């Protein structure tokens, strides 16, 4: 698990750290991520003015190209701790990644369950309007 995470982290230039602020709101900052291979931890850079609190947190790695495509997204949950002069993120295991078609079918299944739970029919999609936008 650690090796897979380490490899993923190394392919991104930075990450978005999301933690709680002093009022309990989520807040995010973009940070470099430094791998501590011995301790299976990640060191992150948190601005002193960010008001970030220790505790449960997450790291989001994502990127897209100029056409908002070739999307890559890796989300890691974990625990954020201040060690006095640095911030350390202890990651939880990564969720398994899915092939694109499997991910689409999973979303379809989730949508069907959402409708079924509420006793709703599958709503009609305004395909003509959508196609009109996309054919301009």
């Amino acid at each position, binding site marked *: 698990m650690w090796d897979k995470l380490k490899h993923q982290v190394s392919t991104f230039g930075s990450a*978005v750290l999301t933690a709680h602020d002093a009022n309990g709101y*989520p807040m995010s900052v973009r940070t470099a991520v430094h791998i501590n291979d011995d301790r299976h931890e990640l060191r992150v850079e948190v601005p002193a003015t960010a008001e970030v609190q220790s505790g449960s947190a997450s790291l989001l790695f*994502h990127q897209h190209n100029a*056409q908002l495509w070739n999307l890559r997204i890796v989300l890691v*949950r974990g625990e954020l701790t201040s060690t006095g002069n640095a911030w350390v993120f202890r990651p939880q295991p990564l969720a398994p990644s899915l092939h694109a078609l499997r991910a689409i079918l999973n979303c379809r299944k989730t949508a069907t369950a959402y409708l079924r739970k509420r006793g709703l029919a599958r709503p009609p999609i305004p395909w003509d309007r959508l196609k009109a*936008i996309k054919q301009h």
Partner: protein
Amino acid sequence: MLEHLPTHVRDALFAYRTCEFATLAKDGTPIAVPVSPVILPEQERIVITTSIGLPNKAFNVRRDGRVSLLFSDPTASGLDHPPAVLIQGDAVCPDRIETWTPELEQLWRMLDERQPVSKMYVRNALTRYLMDWYYMRLVIWVTPRRVRWWEHGDFAALPHEFEKEMNYVG
């Protein structure tokens, strides 16, 4: 608040292709995902939408409306060294499935221009069958309460700040 932001900060909000939208998960963990927001300064609100095939952020908002949006990846924005902008606010998400609203139309027009590959979702009967769930949307309305930004995306610098009462902290 959004209407009173400095021009270069507002420009950044409109130009960034994505922002990192954070909600509080069931166990309280703050989780961020990339989304394409619709900025509505005249309403002082931001609209995030999600498919009922990916409803977790909507569920999170219904449990706890505290959210944040970070604009920190300027890829394809056309801006040189824009500010990174953090917006914290309060969100609501009605349990109502939408397939066409003015905000959704704005989103689809924006994505058509910025994400041309998405045209394939409506291309033929097979893609429409596979992707119909994508167009069944839940609408999340975010009211900003605090905005901070770091010039040039430099998080080591002191941020500027706007709070709801429009107190500008330089």
